[in-house]
């Protein structure tokens, strides 16, 4: 039997981050990953001979600076990638810099209004950001530092005056549609806000609290630029590879192709894991960087956790709504009206708030959208190794595609794929003729490929009732769990999903702060 200070379950980017920081604190760390490759949803896959996908996470927009530093990411790279909001008329709006610091294709007045709204939202997101980079406070047992964060947030608000404080409290739980209507007139910009606020979340733009999704997006930064984004694999190196290199550099022992059968626990304390091979590994701390439902419903004996706790875990809402499309193309597609240079950024199909809302409506009843919205990248433009020379890959996150499709995905998938391709054809005429291969992953496929319950990349809905002290559930919101010695480090923990590394970083900090068993 081998003994480690810490065992990390799951080699996604949060598992790798947790392992890296634990190893850098001088601990002997083992990371086990069920798949043969590391990276989780940032893990690429071949979907046709010669054509590869960068993975589910085709855009990185919220990598934490401390995590980025640990990854020694090359900082000398270009500008943030632009976002092109495609219009059927070919008159697109293009946001440049950090979430539209500069906008092309809209009137001067509208640009001014967007600037005002952007400033307001970024300011408010900055207030929220204080809470994202630390453990959620423990209600009833608030530490001094928690009060400091709260006081800091309060002061940050007051510095801007009473009016801003009031506005913050007014807007916090609003829906994104009303907010957009309040400031903007241009349907393309409103549609973009509506799309970004609801991407990966089971809410429509008119659902209460949908603005939270946009705040979450704007708490992200890349290379010090708030709201900026980078297309995955830009520079020819995937995020997964960077996380993996950092872990190896920190001295983490990594075992891939090593599924975990169960977590060993006795009388409220976790002491190790048993692999599917039967091998037992012991550690003072077990850090689970997989979905909380997998951790507690699949790997943990129900006899070792409380009824109420297991019930709460079982009740986490975690049904994905996003399908992932990968296309192998003979040539780089043309999107009339979009500059060639902008094709290496993000392209968004969302015509209006109504379009996003109407795309969401059927999802409530277990149906997919007949007129879906989506964000598109052409990853091979940033990393030519993803396609044969002259060829191109297209990656798209398409909404809404509910996990539990009423008629089942076996029947629904071909119909949905047809709709998605027809939609693309409208914005890129001729694209259909250049298709070499199509790969469409429904949430059910994503669940299977990534061992991700519900196919939900946030590991649980990112909504008001599943945030902060209630993420993933109250009794495990501080990375430690009722099972002493077992910690959570996945996107299911605070602050949530996206390639940020924060759940992994904060979980590692929690482990480091505790006395070793």
């Amino acid at each position: 039997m081998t003994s480690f200070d810490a065992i990390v379950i799951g080699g996604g980017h949060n598992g790798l981050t947790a392992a890296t920081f634990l190893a850098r604190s001088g601990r002997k760390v083992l990371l086990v990953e069920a798949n043969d490759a590391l990276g989780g949803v940032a893990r690429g896959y071949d979907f046709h001979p010669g054509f590869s996908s960068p993975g589910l996470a085709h855009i990185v927009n919220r990598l934490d600076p401390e995590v980025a530093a640990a990854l020694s990411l090359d900082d000398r790279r270009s500008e943030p990638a632009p976002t092109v909001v495609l219009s059927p008329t070919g008159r697109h709006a293009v946001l440049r810099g950090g979430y539209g610091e500069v906008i092309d294709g809209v009137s001067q007045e509208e640009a001014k209004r967007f600037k005002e709204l952007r400033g307001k939202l970024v300011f408010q997101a900055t207030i929220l950001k204080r809470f994202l980079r630390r453990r959620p406070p423990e209600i009833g047992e608030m530490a001094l530092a928690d009060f400091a964060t709260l006081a800091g947030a309060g002061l940050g608000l007051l510095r801007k005056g009473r009016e801003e404080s009031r506005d913050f409290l007014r807007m916090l739980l609003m829906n994104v549609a009303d907010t957009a209507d309040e400031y903007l007139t241009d349907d393309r910009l409103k549609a973009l806000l509506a799309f970004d606020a609801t991407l990966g979340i089971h809410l429509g733009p008119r659902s209460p609290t949908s603005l939270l999704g946009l705040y979450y997006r704007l708490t992200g930064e890349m290379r010090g630029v708030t709201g900026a984004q980078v297309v995955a694999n830009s520079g020819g190196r995937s995020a997964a590879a960077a996380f993996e290199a950092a872990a190896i550099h920190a001295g983490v022992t990594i075992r891939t192709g090593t599924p975990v059968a169960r977590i060993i626990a006795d009388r409220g304390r976790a002491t190790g894991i048993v692999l599917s091979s039967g091998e037992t590994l012991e550690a003072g701390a077990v850090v689970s960087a997989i979905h909380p439902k997998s951790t507690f419903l699949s790997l943990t004996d129900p006899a070792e956790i409380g009824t109420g706790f297991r019930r709460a875990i079982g009740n986490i809402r975690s049904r994905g709504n996003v399908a992932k499309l990968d296309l192998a193309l003979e040539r780089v597609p043309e999107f009339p009206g979009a500059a060639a240079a902008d094709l290496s950024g993000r392209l968004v199909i969302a015509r209006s708030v109504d379009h996003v809302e109407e795309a969401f409506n059927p999802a409530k009843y277990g149906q997919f959208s007949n007129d879906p919205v989506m964000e598109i990248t052409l990853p091979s433009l940033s990393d030519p190794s993803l396609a044969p020379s002259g060829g191109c890959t297209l990656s798209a996150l398409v909404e809404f595609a509910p996990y539990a499709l009423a008629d089942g995905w076996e029947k629904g998938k071909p119909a949905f794929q047809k709709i998605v391709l027809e939609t693309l054809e409208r914005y890129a005429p001729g694209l259909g003729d250049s298709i070499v291969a199509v790969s469409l992953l429904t949430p059910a496929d994503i669940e299977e490929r990534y061992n991700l319950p519900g196919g939900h990349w946030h590991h649980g809905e990112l909504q008001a009732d599943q945030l902060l002290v209630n993420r993933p559930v109250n009794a495990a919101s501080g990375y430690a769990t009722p099972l002493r010695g077992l910690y959570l480090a996945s996107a299911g923990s605070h602050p949530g999903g996206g390639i940020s590394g924060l759940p992994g970083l904060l979980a590692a900090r929690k482990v480091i702060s505790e006395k070793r068993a």
Partner: protein
Amino acid sequence: MMMHLTALRRAAQGHIQTPRLETPFHARLAALSETNDWYSWAGYKAPHSIFDTELEYFAIRSTAALFDISPMVKYRIRGADAERYLNRLTLRNVAKLGLGRVHYTAWCDDHGHVLDDGTLFRLGLNDFRLCCQERHLPWLVDSAAGFAVEIAEETDEIAAVALQGPTSFAVLEAAGFAGVEALKPFQLSAFPHLDGTVTISRTGFTGDLGYELFVDAKHALSLWDRLWAAGTGFGLKAIGYDALNRARIEAGFIVANADFITAEAALRADRERLPDEIGLDWLVDAEKPYFNGRDAIFRAREKNSLKHILIGLEIEGNIPAEGAIVYHRGKKEVGLVTAAIWSPLAKRNIAIATLSRPYGSRIVDDLWVEIYALRELQYQKLMKRARIVARPFVKLDRRSANPPGRF
């Protein structure tokens, strides 16, 4: 035949025609009832008294008493994981509960707050019956997730009657339950009755020699008649709850939602109780596998954060102190009496009370109770000295004598 939708719906809601249910023994109880004094026990019509509470009490202590316990909530837990399941659910170690044995236990939520107490019967290796005061099906079913067990509520299907008192064994013997003399306290066995069986356990809620009999509801009346006929020579009486309540106080037993508030019934956060706060600390087993509430219970012990304590009191005088406030030095309010009687057997004025620690734990002297005795529309306020005493208040050798006495 097609039935109109409304008619179908109405047919499925027949239970609303009988808002208060009658137990399988009701026909016999109603025929015997002289006081016609009924109350609702978990939705069933149950007697406060049958003919005279005083005499009914003395039937328990001097001859034999028959008390209908059918309204007691009964769950059947069966399956390969039944023992593991119950070990996680309840405080005591179920692995130590032998086949054909019964133990008293309690169960808690994740925070260590007591949900209920009750008795667990091991009917088979993988077959248990859990009896309690309150209903818990959602909790039991949620607890079953991940275990190979089946949970069924059988309160309606299984009739149960308690036969308690010094001649109770003699009654069973006369009724022809051969081999019942072999039952030791907390042991159970099945006996033939008509074309079925009756499960008899040597258990009870009186602190006396006594048995509890469980039978299919359809055989309830025939079982009653069998016992009643056998009991004629042994002073067998049917009794109501008021008499039983006196006996249980003497025995020092607590009643959920009378002596403590169960976690699911508590509306106020400070009303919930850890086992150690209601005298059930002895059920908590640190060596057994994990169970619901384990961490919270041991953390409270470690941190010394237990807030309450349940104790037995002996109070001067002979006025029962039910509902009385307990004072320290006659001034500081430190607790409440939840059950009290003048004990005819102990010839003492006894009470069960809950105090706020450290009163009752570290500070145990100079305790007083303030009794409001209503005397013809005028309260007579009595400040009486109280002394903490051990429970049970009454201990009877015949309860555990082997073989049981005939008298």
